[in-house]
Structures are given as C-alpha cells and as structure tokens.
C-alpha cells in the first residue's frame, strides 16, 4: 500500500517541495552571488586600508576601519577629484537631458503616430535607421562642428551645459521616439476626439489627455537614457574635455585615476564615492529600474 502511494509522489517531484534539491540550488546561487558581489566587497575593504597595507599585503583585512574616513577625507578634498562639483554637474546634465529627451520625444512620437502621411512615415523610418549609427562615426566631426556652431551663434557648444544637453537630445531621441511611438499606437483615439469636440486645443489635448497616459512608458525612457547618460564617458570627454570646468563623475574618476596611479586606497575610495549615488537610487527605485530595463530591451 505504502509503496503504491509513493510512486506518483516521486514522479510529481519538483512541483512538490523537495528540500534537498532546493537547498543545493540555494547554496549554488548564494556562492555565485558572493562571487558577483566580491568586487564591491574588495572596494569597501580596501577603502579602509592605507597604501602601505595594500602594497605589503594586497589581500588582507583593514587594520583600522577608521582609515576609511581618513581616505575619504583626502579624496574628498582633492582638487583633481572634487566630488561634489562632479556630482552636481552629473545631476544637472542627466536631469535636464532626461527632461528634454522625454518630453520632446513624446511630443514628436505623438504627432508621428496621429498623422499618417508619407512624411511622417519617412521621418519615423529615419529615426529607426539612426539607431544603427554608432557614436564613433560622428564624434570627430561633431567636436569641430560644435566649435564652429558655437562661434557662429555666440553660444558656446563645447565645455558648456547647453552643448552637451543638446547633444544628448540628439543622440537619445531616436530610441525614445521609437519606444513612445510603439506605446502611443495602442492609446485609443476616442479620448483625443472627445477632447477635440470639447474645444481643447491640439497642445492641450497632448498635455492634458495624452501625456498622463504615457506614464508607464516614461519609466522605460527615463531608465534607459538615465543609466546611459549618468555613466557615459566618451561624449563628456569630447564635448566637455578632460580637466575642464564642467566634469561629470566618470570624467572625474578617469582624471583622478590618471593622476594617482597605483594609489589603490585612494582609487578605491574614488570608485566607492562614484558608485554611491546610483546604488542609493537603485535601493529606492529598484522596481522601476528593473521594469524599465526589461521593457526597453523588448521594445
């Protein structure tokens, strides 16, 4: 009797809890996770050590955790790194670029979806094709052309906020329009027609009726562009220059590492400070960031 009962239970394994197998999977996952997190642990531990400690014994526990504050102080006060000014510039550039990219791309995508003309399809096709253009093929002429354009307009386009933000709009809009376009196609036209009949202007229809509906897709556009702009190195390097007045965090880290070669304790602190803002943001907005990344890849 007992045996007969056991057989189907065996075959149903997997869907019923099997503590042994689950434990084994949990151990494998945990070990892999520790391996993945190890570089971060190394950063924190070595931020607490002195240069002599690291040179004498690269692998070891910090002798005094208090050294963390000594190291942070010397990196913080270092004029090459100047973390607060880099943080401020990164925030200014990322936030304004995101606002400009998302609003203008949503506006453009909406007009492109609601106007089925030859021109609108051609324009949309151009944006799709532009996503293939790598930064490398435009980056050298961009610098010369931005310099000339700035001189011509008497608005500096190099080493300025407006120049790099405008460039981010130009490089970020194609993908953003594409994502908004896909979403707006699914928004029913009846709502807009009702607003039209009620005497709402075209712009009013967009800002009062359509824009609030776009909220889920805004998350995707903000996350994809935000991570890219925040961590971007090459565009700031070319348009702001190394060692200029305006420096983003990646520029500051690269400059600092270049001038403190092999001073690993200070380099580790600089990377720790550089990672902190985005990790703190991730702790609070993890759900949105993960959702945005997944949606963005599938669209």
């Amino acid at each position, binding site marked *: 009797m007992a045996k007969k009962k056991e057989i189907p239970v065996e075959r*149903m394994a997997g869907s019923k809890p099997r503590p042994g197998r689950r434990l084994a999977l949990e151990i*494998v996952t945990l070990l892999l*996770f520790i391996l993945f997190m190890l570089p971060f642990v190394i950063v924190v531990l070595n931020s607490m050590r002195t240069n002599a400690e690291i040179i004498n014994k690269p*692998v070891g526990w910090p002798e005094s955790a208090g050294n963390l504050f000594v190291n942070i102080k010397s990196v913080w006060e270092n004029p090459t790194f100047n973390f607060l000014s880099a943080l401020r510039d990164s925030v200014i550039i990322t936030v304004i670029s995101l606002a*400009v990219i998302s609003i203008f791309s949503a506006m453009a995508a909406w007009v492109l979806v609601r106007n089925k003309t030859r021109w609108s399809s051609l324009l949309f096709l151009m944006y799709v094709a532009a996503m293939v253009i*790598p930064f*490398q093929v435009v980056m050298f002429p961009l610098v010369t052309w931005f310099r000339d354009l700035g001189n011509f307009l008497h608005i500096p386009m190099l080493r300025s906020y407006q120049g790099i933000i405008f460039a981010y709009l130009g490089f970020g809009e194609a993908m953003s329009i594409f994502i908004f376009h896909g979403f707006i196609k699914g928004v029913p036209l009846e709502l807009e027609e009702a607003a039209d009949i009620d005497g709402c202007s075209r712009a009013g229809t967009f800002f009062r009726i359509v824009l609030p509906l776009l909220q889920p897709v805004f998350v995707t556009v903000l996350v994809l562009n935000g991570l890219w702009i925040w961590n971007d190195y090459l565009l700031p390097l070319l348009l702001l220059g190394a060692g200029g007045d305006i420096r983003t965090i990646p520029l500051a*880290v690269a400059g600092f590492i270049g001038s403190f070669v092999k001073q690993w304790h200070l380099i580790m602190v600089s990377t720790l400070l550089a990672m902190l803002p985005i990790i703190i943001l991730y702790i609070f907005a*993890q759900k949105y960031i993960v959702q945005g990344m997944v949606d963005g890849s599938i669209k």
Partner: protein
Amino acid sequence: MTSKQKRKLTEGLFLAPTILAFIVVQIIPFIYGIYYSFTDWAGTGAASKMVGLENYIKIFQDKGFLHSFLITLEFTVLNVVAVNVVAFLISLLVTSEIRGRNVYRAGFFVPNLIGGIVLGSIWQFIFSSILPSVGQALNIAGLSKSLITNPKTVMFTMVTVNTWQYAGYIMLIFVAAIQGIPKSVMEAAEVDGAPYWRRVRSIQIPLMANSFTISLFLTLTNSFKMYDVNVALTNGGPTGLWNKTIVNSSELLALNIYNTAFKYNKMAQGQAKAVIFFLVLVIFSVIQVSWNKSKEVEM
C-alpha cells in the same frame, strides 16, 4: 488663422525640437564624417583637400587596425557566448523554487548600474594586485603574475569584466521570458516524467526563442562597441608581437579609432576607420532585421 492651420502649426512645433537636434547632432556630423574620410582633414577648421581612397588604402595596410579588427571579432564571439551562458544559468537559478529569488535578481543586476570607467578601475586592481597575491599564496603558477600585462590572457580579463557587468541585464530579459511561459506547460511535462534538463531543453528554451534573439543582438553590438572598460582596464596594453609587427594586444576597435585620431593625430584615418566600424554595425542590423522577418513568416 483657421483651426486647421492652428493644428498644423502646433504639430510642426511639436516636431521641431527633435528634428533640429537630430539634424545638428547626427545628420550634419555624419555627412561631414563621410566627407572627411576622403580628405586629408586634420581636425582643425582649416580647409582640407580631397585625397580619394587614400585613407582607406592606408588603414587596410595598417596592421594595428587589422589586429584590432580581428581581436574585436574574437572578443565579440567570446563575450556573446560568455554573457548569454552565464545569464541563462543565473536566470534558471533565480526562477527556481529557492528562497530570496527577488533579492538575487535585483543583486545580480547591480554591476550593470555602474559605468565602465569605474568598473574597469576596480577590476584593474583585482587583476593586477589581488589575484597575483592569491596566486602566489596558493602557489598557482598561472595566477601569480598579472593577467592584464600578459598578451595571452588579457582577452580573458576583458571578457570576465564585461560578462560580470552585462550578465545581470541579460538575466532580467531571460527571467521575464521564463515567467511568460505558462506554468501548466512545465507541470504537464513534469507529470509525464520529463527530467529537469529535458524540460529546460525541450520546453523552456524553444519558448524563449524570442528573448534569445534580443539578447544575442544586444550583446553582439554591445561587445563590438566596447570602449569604457577597455580604456579603464587595459588601455589597449600590453604591447605584443603579431605577424612580425608590434601591436597593442587588447586595443579593441573603438579604442583604436579614438587613438588613431587623438594619440597619433591622424584624424582623417581615424574617421575612415569609424566609417568601416559603422558599416560592420549596419551589416549586423541587416542580419538582425532579416532574421526577425524570417521568423515572422514562420509564425
């Protein structure tokens, strides 16, 4: 103004910012870029004269460029395989019945939040100080010297860092795909007695085909364009011998293009390399589009 004219005006204004930025930031530099690649452009505003195909002939005789091209292809193949395999295995683990699945999913994604400059610096410390010290302590000959300064192992270090950075992102795509598979299908196979790997191979993988296509092309272009980690981790070094020529053994294409222009002051040749770089990426996307098209027909 009639309401129709007003409407047209609003829509024109809605399209204007993105069209303007697109023309100024992408179209004009792109046209300049193609043009400069046929001239003796030196990066300054000075007039440049046409030299025909000279730049293209020179770069194909440049062994450093050919070497960069080949190792970029090598890196791309190795990296696409490594990222996708690691990401797939992690996605199986974090969708199994283990406790703390959501914490792991969020955690494995963390390296993707951080920029290549910061990550490259951290891993440079790991490869040049930590690992050799571990290797010496444990008497492992292969590890007792820095893997970065050896031309034979430097590729391995770049694949490791990029896999560590990117696998968490691809994992999220796979997790979303696995969650999209109806539970009943997997359970039915289980009841029929299909062992675990058989279920993965015959049910999960075929039902995830779409997400594999997405991740394949994402990792393909991402690997081919790799720049930040390359700069911060190896900066192209060490020098090595290839076909009787001294080459930078880890200088991938994007870095080679940048160095040609700014380190060796050959702007026009750098631009010609960038045009070739662009053409390869166009080929990738043509393959991707036709691949997707052929699948649509099947379905």
